[in-house]
């Protein structure tokens, strides 16, 4: 993830954040270590899309639009719809984000979001077949990041799940009846970073900048792990990971309460 604009955060600020976490167990913005920032979800923001959501997570803001179109299945999965996820780190979101082909960062985010949705089997892809091997529904998840203040993986997962949960398959375009996208569960990803030896949930940008390592844990209602991703060039101990899984289970339930019904 990007360093701050001048590629240095003032030593003073860095120390302030650090000391507050270490001494008081409280973060610079007053949050507890395992506390998410405020989540606001607005669905159906893009009525022309098959589903959509604008999500703000603190000062991070992303827009997700779902397009569902008829097309060909993959040859090795003739009896399944197709799911594809793309994240655009728009240059409007941060001074150093650049236009152009997806960066490593945007690819990692998209793939972690995709894995959470795919592996939890949130979308019942078997119900998205029009004619086996010939025509299925292709679900395009596209996410525009328009304001960046940390923790894009969770913001994007929330936006994608919310948009999918309210999406409609436009079957009328092929002479059938529109129907809600078949949904089986609502995965929630919880991302934590490690600052010195303390793990905090839902880092903002300044916390990301001083963190050594990142861990994302995605679970569904069944309390099972669906996807994990460790990132950044630091490490976790196995105990830290086990504790993070526990935290993720709790925080994930809170996130799930915010999802549109």
């Amino acid at each position, binding site marked *: 993830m990007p360093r701050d604009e001048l590629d240095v955060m003032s030593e003073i600020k860095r120390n302030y954040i650090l000391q507050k976490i270490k001494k008081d167990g409280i973060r610079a913005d007053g949050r507890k270590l395992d506390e998410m920032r405020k989540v606001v979800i607005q669905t159906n*923001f*893009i*009525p*022309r*899309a098959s589903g*959509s959501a604008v999500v703000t997570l603190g*000062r991070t*803001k992303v*827009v997700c*639009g*779902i*397009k569902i*179109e008829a097309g060909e299945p993959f040859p090795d999965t003739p009896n399944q719809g197709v799911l594809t996820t*793309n994240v*655009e780190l*728009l*240059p*409007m*979101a*941060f*001074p150093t984000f650049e*236009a*152009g*082909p997806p960066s490593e960062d945007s690819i990692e985010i998209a793939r972690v979001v995709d894995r959470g949705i795919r592996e939890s089997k949130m979308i019942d892809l078997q119900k998205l077949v029009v004619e086996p091997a010939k025509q299925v529904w292709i679900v*395009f998840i*596209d996410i*525009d990041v*328009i*304001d*960046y*203040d940390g923790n894009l993986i969770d913001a994007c997962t929330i936006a994608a799940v919310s948009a999918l949960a309210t999406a409609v398959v436009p079957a009328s375009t092929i002479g059938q009846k529109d129907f809600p996208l078949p949904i089986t569960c609502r995965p929630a990803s919880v991302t934590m970073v490690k600052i010195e030896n303390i793990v905090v949930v839902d880092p903002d940008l300044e916390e990301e900048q001083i963190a050594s390592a990142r861990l994302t844990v995605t679970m569904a209602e069944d309390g099972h792990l669906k996807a994990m991703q460790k990132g950044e060039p630091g490490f976790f101990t196995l105990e830290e990971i086990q504790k993070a899984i526990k935290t993720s289970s709790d925080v994930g339930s809170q996130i799930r309460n915010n999802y549109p019904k």
Partner: protein
Amino acid sequence: MGTASDKKLFDENGLRLDGRSPGDLRPIRIETDVLNRADGSAFIEWGGNKIQVAVYGPREAYPRHMQDINQAFVRARYNMAAFSVDERKRPGPDRRSMEISKVISEALQAAVMVELFPRAQIDVFIEVLQADAGTRIAGLTASAVALAAAGVPMRDLVVGCTAGKVDGKVVLDLSKEEDNFGQADLPVAVMPKSGKVVLMQMDGDLSIDEFNEATSMIFKATERINQIQRDALKKNYASTAQDWGE
């Protein structure tokens, strides 16, 4: 312009499919400072268009060889979200968006006091979240507001509007269907104080009389749209003042 069709675009009362008279605008709403990271931002809803604009700069132009020792340059980047149009759009610039980026950049360059910022660039990012005819004009109109909200010194705002020809009649602010099935499209942007034209494109078929009728409609409309721009900026300043007062 549009595809030939038997589609009727006026009802028996001479009103358009969405109930507007020929000289009516669609509803327009502009909000400023909706993003935290950018130096300035504006969000515009114009009919079904939903467009987010962010401004960064003036900042040192990069790469270096692009720097102009006499002035800043404005680099607008118009982009359509993959989900903004009926059929999913593959991400990244296409020829249409590159042309639009160019004409918007040039229009804003005319209005910004670029001579104050040698060697600098001012980035204007325009993201079309939902497209509904007239995106370039709506994006440009919001860009001017975002620049002002960013505190970039300008000679004047820039405000745009389109007119077109539908069923042989000149109308203001084409809707998506009118754009698809109409006979002409004329997007224009002006600096409202002076009436100077900083963007003009046209395609289709217009007699010279029709052109004059269309531009006259547009000029009148830009006054109304400019008022919306100024109100949006005022609301922002107001609320900023309020915040300070707390």
